[in-house]
């Protein structure tokens, strides 16, 4: 029975502990604000890790913790519910959230395409022996994307359209980027939209890139951004401003120091050093390319990603 009472005590404690799960960020040691950022542990978020290492956040009294969600799915609700103060997500996901009136707003740029066909960090790949040689050939084929009804399929459709093909007959298949090289090799899909480091894996195995969908969609496409809840922006404008400043400094630093970016990748991913040295890095400008965001909104609307709604860019962009 004593064990039973102990069990009950544990239960009560746990319930009490659960109650304080959504505490506001308290002031940390030395008056620094404790800030949690929901990120996906991929190449795109290297600047925030680098900026943390360089002290760009500490110097602005921000004590940063990165929480890695396995995808935007956990990050947007996390930011809205206050689990995270900031989050990282691709633009199309943010536009989808906006059309559903999710109270969030972009506070800093995230990552951008290099804008150069042949030298971007993501593209549509096929097997070495595939009959597909150009974007127009992708019409009617089975293509892997990491998330359906998101930035991948909408930009791939644009690539096909621009090349004179009809994107209507394409079947998109959802699978994690990391599974795509194997799926391509095994012939489960005709083509795969991959980003680094999976892009390097495909080309190393002899695969070819047939379309640079980010480049085709818009020049210097803004791919993703950091965002906060409108509540935090209203309640603690000073913290948001300090975060934005630190983030911008991190983005500029990362853009200017590719070698340090490749080094910091080793701290939060398991990409092996050889692959780190070889992969194509994205661009990290501090400015959000509004024209490209408008293009993504237009493309998404055309492809029915927003369920008939039109995203209001003034509500989501700073």
């Amino acid at each position, binding site marked *: 029975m004593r064990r039973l009472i102990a069990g009950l005590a544990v239960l009560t404690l746990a319930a009490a502990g659960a109650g304080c*799960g959504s505490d506001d960020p308290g002031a940390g040691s030395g008056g620094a604000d404790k800030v949690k950022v929901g990120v996906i542990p991929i190449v795109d978020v290297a600047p925030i890790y680098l900026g943390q290492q360089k002290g760009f956040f500490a110097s602005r009294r921000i004590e940063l913790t990165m*929480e890695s969600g*396995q995808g935007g799915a956990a990050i947007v609700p996390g930011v809205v*519910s206050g689990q995270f103060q900031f989050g990282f997500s691709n633009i199309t996901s943010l536009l989808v959230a906006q059309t559903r009136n999710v109270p969030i707003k972009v506070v800093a740029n995230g990552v951008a395409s290099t804008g150069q066909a042949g030298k971007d960090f993501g593209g549509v790949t096929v097997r070495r022996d595939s009959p597909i040689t150009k974007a127009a050939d992708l019409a009617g084929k089975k293509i892997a994307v990491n998330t359906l009804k998101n930035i991948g399929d909408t930009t791939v459709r644009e690539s096909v359209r621009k090349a004179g093909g009809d994107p209507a007959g394409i079947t998109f298949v959802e699978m994690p980027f990391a599974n795509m090289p194997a799926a391509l090799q095994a012939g489960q899909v005709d083509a795969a939209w991959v980003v680094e480091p999976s892009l390097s894996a495909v080309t190393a195995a002899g695969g070819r890139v047939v379309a640079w969908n980010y480049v085709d969609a818009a020049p210097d496409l803004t791919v993703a951004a950091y965002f906060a809840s409108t509540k935090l922006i209203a309640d603690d404008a000073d913290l948001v401003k300090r975060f934005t400043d630190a983030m911008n400094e991190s983005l500029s630093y990362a853009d200017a120091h590719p070698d340090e970016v490749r080094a910091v990748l080793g701290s939060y991913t*398991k990409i092996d050093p050889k692959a780190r040295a070889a992969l194509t890095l994205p661009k990290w400008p501090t400015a959000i390319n509004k024209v490209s965001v408008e293009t993504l909104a237009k493309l998404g609307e055309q492809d029915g990603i927003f369920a008939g709604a039109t995203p209001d860019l003034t509500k989501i962009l700073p």
Partner: protein
Amino acid sequence: MILRLSGLAGLLLLAEALPRLGLVADLPPASRILAALADEAGTAAFWTAVGDTLTAWALGLAIAVGAGVAVGVLIGAVPTLRAWTASTVEFLRPIPSVALIPLAVLLYGTDLGSTLLLVVYAAFWQVLVQVLYGVADVDPVADETARSFRLSPWARLRHVLWPTALPYVFTGIRLAAAVALVLAVTAELVIGAPGLGSVIAVAQSSGALPTMYALIVVTGLLGVAINVGARYAERRFLSWHQSVRAEPAR
């Protein structure tokens, strides 16, 4: 023992040979996986991940067992309560714990809390159902005898109900321990809560296949260790019970 280990050796040989013969694409040979395992074991981050997973497992299991036993004894001992709650239990029990992932994320983000919610939900029913069976198994003659000797409800619980239910409780714990590990790793893998699961996901998205498989092997080893531990505890605490006493003779 040697015969048992030969199965493992055979598996290792197969896992070494198949990829080398090119029969399985994207599965590194066992030797490379073991090398990656050795590399991982040398890092602090790996042990932190193991610690996080075991913490979520142990805490979740403790809560589930505590709640399962308390609720089970209460419901089981009061027939009216049992009748009232039967449909509720039958409705809630089959809900797969992973279906609660969206709820967990909304409530706890990617914290330990999310993992705990899934672990406790899955493990609780394993314990509860076993306890209910255990309570139902009380010998009516013994119960009536205790009543006619005017034993207090507490004494009847202690001396009649509890010894009967205990073997069932341990079966429940053993089942729950395995399920709790599965759910802990799943939650970390899908939600990204800290632990082995999230490290597996990072290794996967980094294209570090040997490391990914090495970590999967670690979760398997944890499962074996947990099962062996649960069986040992069962034998030790139930050494007086015929189900355990009879075992060596078999």
